[in-house]
């Protein structure tokens, strides 16, 4: 489409748009006027109807009243007769009884019931009778509208009550003819509107065409002709002829354009010549460049070969690495197999569970221990099988993950078995919990052994002592009560040895039993309040003989302040002190043994100092061990002095009572100081 046609189409379109907008505006104005006309007419019509109706019903009722008053009818029969006579064809009449609202004979008019619904009339009458009104209207004017969809016929009824006769008389009319009139007017309006509309369109189209033609003519002479000239010149130049000039002499923009165009073609001629020189120059330069690039390409090709070689080397390396991975993988799978074999050969039940308690690996032993045939799938099953009270194992494991602890349940009763269970959370290298390890051990045999050991000790304590008592008792009696009869000094010495041996053996038996009880924890502490000084005096009194035999002085360094009251097991404290002082006596040849007291924090410290030979540093660490006498080297032991259990027993007892026992200090050739501590009554 050339510019000529474009301009024409544009002009026609714009004019058409303006006319259409204008036309629609006129149409809407017309419609509004029409609606206004109808409303006005409706109002006037209803007013007129009401006026006419009022005249009609007044005439009707005046007539009845007149007849009624003059002829004085005393019953409704007579009144009805009057109404019959008065009844005019211009309206409809209805007569009803006041009492029951029923239509009185001869005065129902079908038209009345079509005008108004019977129930509306009934309700309306009742309301007005109640309000003691004698005259009232009923109309449906408010429901009437004057448009074409209207179906309500405007109508009205006037009621009057005749109490003397007991009847209600209604006079009504409809205004259906008026409705027809409205429709006619409406139709007239539409016709008027249509003719106006067509006229308007005709005028607008005509004007539009005229304007368009005028515009086309102007456009053609002013714009299009010069443009065509320029277009033709451009065509020539495009074909390569730069000698062609445009011939437009006008003084407007087109004239300037033509002049500029001519100047431009001149310049183009010059530029073209210059460009040709330039192209020649550039072509020679490009030739040089091409040579350089060819050289570069050769170098690049060489580089490519080097890189290819490198890539080949790399490929080889990669293959080697892959081989290594294969070897490592094999090693790992071997490792796994070994690990699995170890786990499977464990007599202890073993399982690895994930974070949700599901079994990942387990060995056959766990099934054997728990007497189950089918594989166990989760920790919850274990909880059920073992009938674990309180929190389930999974719950406990979850707690342990937070606290980083280990669950240990020893002596779980399972049928006739005793089981011990361990459950430990497993953490990955970055401290994330990845599950847990479950160990279940059947400790039934160990329990049986433990029980038989207890029984052994009970038997030993009773059965060993009885013969020993006989040996000791008889020997002692021979040496005291029958000493006159033993004259031979060798026999006497032998009897003394038997006596000493039996005393020592009883001591050993007692110490052994005590150690085993302490080690098993079968010892109860009976705490009471007591005075340590009393206990010390009692111990000194019982050991005084021994000390005197060795000419050692045994003394208490009486504290300046009275000692705090002690809350502990008095008999056991007494035994420990007896032990320490007894040891000091045994290992001191001359000098003295003294007992002193200190209060340290919440504890009373009892110190036993002697002037014995002292204990060398290397033996210090051996003290308080089982079968380790307080004296000297383990191999150079003096069996006549002790079994070596005394300090060990003392240490276990003191620790059980919340105290401490140890060697305070010792210097060889000067003496040793032992101590123990006991809690003070707080």
């Amino acid at each position, binding site marked *: 489409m050339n510019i000529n046609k474009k301009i024409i189409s544009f002009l026609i379109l714009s004019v058409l748009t303006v006319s259409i907008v204008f036309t629609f505006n006129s149409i809407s104005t017309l419609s509004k006027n029409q609606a206004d006309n109808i409303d006005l007419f409706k109002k006037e019509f209803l007013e007129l109807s009401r006026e006419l109706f009022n005249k009609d019903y007044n005439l009707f009722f005046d007539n009845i009243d007149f007849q009624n008053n003059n002829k004085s009818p005393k019953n409704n029969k007579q009144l009805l007769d009057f109404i019959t006579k008065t009844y005019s064809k211009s309206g409809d009449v209805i007569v009803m009884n006041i009492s029951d609202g029923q239509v009185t004979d001869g005065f129902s008019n079908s038209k009345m019931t079509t005008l108004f619904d019977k129930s509306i009339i009934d309700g309306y009458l009742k309301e007005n009778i109640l309000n003691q009104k004698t005259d009232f209207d009923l109309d449906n004017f408010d429901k009437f509208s004057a448009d074409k969809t209207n179906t309500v016929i405007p109508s009205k009824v006037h009621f009057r009550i005749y109490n003397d006769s007991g009847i209600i008389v209604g006079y009504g009319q409809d205004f259906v003819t008026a409705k027809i009139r409205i429709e006619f007017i409406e139709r007239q309006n539409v016709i008027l509107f249509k003719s106006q509309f067509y006229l308007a369109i005709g005028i607008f189209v005509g004007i539009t065409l005229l304007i368009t033609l005028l515009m086309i003519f102007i456009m053609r002479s002013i714009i299009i002709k010069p443009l065509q000239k320029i277009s033709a010149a451009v065509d020539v130049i495009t074909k390569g002829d730069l000698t062609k000039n445009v011939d437009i002499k006008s003084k407007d923009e087109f004239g300037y354009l033509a002049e500029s165009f001519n100047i431009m073609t001149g310049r183009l001629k010059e530029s073209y010549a210059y460009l040709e020189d330039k192209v020649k120059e550039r072509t020679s330069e490009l030739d040089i460049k091409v040579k350089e690039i060819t050289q570069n390409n050769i170098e690049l090709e060489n580089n490519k070969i080097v890189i290819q070689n490198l890539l080949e080397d790399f490929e080889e390396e990669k293959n080697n690495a892959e081989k290594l991975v294969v070897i490592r993988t094999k090693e790992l799978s071997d490792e796994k197999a070994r690990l699995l074999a170890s786990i499977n050969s464990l007599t202890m039940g073993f399982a690895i569970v994930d974070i949700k308690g599901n079994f990942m690996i387990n060995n056959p032993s766990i099934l054997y221990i728990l007497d189950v045939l089918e594989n166990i799938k989760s920790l919850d099953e274990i909880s059920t099988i073992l009938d674990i009270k309180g929190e389930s194992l999974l719950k406990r494991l979850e707690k342990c993950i937070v606290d980083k602890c280990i669950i240990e349940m020893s002596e779980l009763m399972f049928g006739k078995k005793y089981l011990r269970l361990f459950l430990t959370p497993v953490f990955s290298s970055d401290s994330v919990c990845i599950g847990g390890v479950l160990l279940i051990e059947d400790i039934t045999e160990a329990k049986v052994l433990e029980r038989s050991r207890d029984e052994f000790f009970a038997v030993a304590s*009773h059965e060993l*002592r009885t*013969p020993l*008592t*006989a040996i000791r008792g008889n020997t002692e009696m021979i040496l005291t009560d029958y000493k006159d009869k033993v004259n031979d000094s060798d026999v006497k010495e032998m009897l003394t040895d038997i006596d000493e041996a039996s005393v020592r053996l*009883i001591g050993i038996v007692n110490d052994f039993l005590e150690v085993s*009880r302490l080690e098993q924890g*079968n010892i109860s502490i009976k705490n009471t309040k007591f005075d340590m000084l009393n206990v010390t005096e009692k111990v000194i009194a019982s050991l005084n003989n021994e000390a005197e035999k060795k000419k050692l002085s045994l003394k208490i360094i009486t504290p300046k302040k009275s000692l705090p009251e002690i809350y502990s097991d008095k008999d056991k404290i007494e035994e420990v002190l007896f032990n320490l002082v007894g040891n000091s006596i045994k290992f001191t040849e001359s000098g003295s043994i003294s007992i002193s007291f200190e209060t340290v924090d919440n504890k009373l410290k009892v110190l036993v100092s002697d002037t014995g030979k002292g204990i060398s540093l290397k033996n210090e660490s051996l003290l308080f061990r089982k079968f380790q006498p307080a004296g000297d080297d383990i191999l150079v032991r003096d069996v006549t002095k002790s079994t070596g259990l005394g300090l060990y027993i003392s240490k276990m007892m003191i620790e059980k009572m919340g105290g401490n026992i140890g060697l305070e200090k010792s210097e060889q050739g000067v003496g040793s100081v032992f101590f123990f501590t006991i809690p003070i009554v707080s």
Partner: protein
Amino acid sequence: MPTLFLAEDDPLMSRMYERAFKLNGFDLKISFDGEDAINTLKSMNPKPIVALVDVMMPKKSGFDVLREMKQDESLKNIPVILLTNLAGEKDAEKGLELGAVLYLVKSQYSPKEIVTKVKEISAGYERKEGIPEVKVSIKNIEEK
């Protein structure tokens, strides 16, 4: 001569104690089991001034003998010493609860010491001063 009563099933023991008491001027009547002990005690006239009773014995234990003695009008005032090698703390407590005046672990006392204990008790008994208060040393009694 004051008479004692001893219930002891082990002849090693009974012979030793018999000798020790006789040397110290006591007359001693011995039973070798629990049942015989009760019968002998009932038949004895005069009654012994102290009864020494072992715990572990055939037929009836020392505890049973003690219990029956305490229920018998003629025997209930005889002081009873339980003389045994059963060194459990619970046993000692039980014996004293049942009314024994002493619970002695045999291995811890020489016959002479036991004679001394009997003398102390019988002296108090004769003087009608009641039974002297005696304690059981923990050294001699084991805990169970």
